[in-house]
């Protein structure tokens, strides 16, 4: 705070004028038209279970990668890793329960592991892959509870991804739409 006097508030008029200016700058189209009509419901319990299993396999791979990264990581990085590690241990059990509710069998096989120069970098790339898999699945899920659980997992993965990218000296939030793997200029 600047002192005992009342803070200088932002006037409504200034807020509105500045908002017009910033919006006028525009932004690239980042979303395909979702269509006026609702999409046909082609879901089945089997398909929902299959989609959740794809998410689960990605999460199991993240758990393995995080486990491998805890050893040599600096203390600050370890705290970030352990936080998601604990969350993913719980959420994989939760996903397994949802799959069983659908009369499915939870997979025990993790998605393909990603190699990198360090364990922390490998965990970072595994998170990116997990996000991409979950984004594919969430577009097809039709049950609110399942969709919200996967949405939650994507945001948790994204937060941890940002923190790990920071420890690797990368931009923690390089793009407006989290896709999983970031578009890296040097890779083009």
């Amino acid at each position, binding site marked *: 705070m600047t002192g005992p006097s009342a803070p200088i508030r932002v006037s*409504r008029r200034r807020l509105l004028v500045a908002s017009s200016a910033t919006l006028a700058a525009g932004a690239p189209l980042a979303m395909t038209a979702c*269509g006026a009509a609702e999409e046909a419901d082609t879901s089945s319990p089997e398909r929902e279970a299959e989609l959740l299993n794809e998410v689960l396999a990605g999460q199991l791979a993240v758990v393995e990668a995080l486990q491998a990264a805890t050893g040599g990581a600096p203390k600050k990085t370890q*705290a970030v890793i352990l936080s998601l590690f604990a969350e993913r241990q719980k*959420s994989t059990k939760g996903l397994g329960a949802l799959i069983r509710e659908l009369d499915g069998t939870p997979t025990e096989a993790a998605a393909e592991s990603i190699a990198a120069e360090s364990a922390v970098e490998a965990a970072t790339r595994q998170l990116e892959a997990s996000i991409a898999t979950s984004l594919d699945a969430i577009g097809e899920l039709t049950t609110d509870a399942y969709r919200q659980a996967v949405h939650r997992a994507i*945001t948790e993965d994204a*937060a941890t991804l940002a923190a790990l990218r920071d420890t690797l000296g990368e931009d923690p939030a390089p793009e407006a739409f989290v896709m999983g793997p970031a578009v890296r200029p040097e890779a083009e």
Partner: protein
Amino acid sequence: MSPLSRRALLGRSALAAGAAAIPSSLLHTDIARAQEDEQTDALERLIALERAAELALSLAAEDSKLDVDAKAAFEELSRQNGEHTTALEQALDSLGVDPPEVQSDQADFESLLDLDLEEDQQDILEFMIGLESELVAAYEDETVNFNAGDLFRTAAQVGASHAQHLVVHRLLTDTPPQSVTNLPPASTSATASNPETTSDEGE
């Protein structure tokens, strides 16, 4: 699949009853109105939050005493919020509903009336952390109101973006909390059957 809203059903019902007597130009308007449901309400709420966050960041980047890193981050995150807004507006438009005009509702910016641009960087960051936490929770809440796969995916991509913004703001604070990645719980949860997926803010 979420059921159609009562409002949307009533709109469609009226449309069917009067279709024979109504000129086609008016029919088009009625169709657009019929699609104003939970989905479009959710998009409008998110647009208002995005506009407020974009504005707060741009004002702070311009007028507050921020260090070089924070200023650059605010400018970038404000730009990203602008992209979110554009995508949501286009989604609303594709559903046949005009996006709310920027100056149509001053209440959209109520959340910014406590923003004091003369406060120090730490306090500004705390304000932004509050805004981003609200956005993360809002996207998680509203995903149950969408009916289209593209919207589920976009809501997740943007909600995830705000989770990353939250981390960026925390990393810029003087003493980043150890739980830098903790997310706020959704205010309404459809995940009752999966309570283990929630975590506390813990700050």
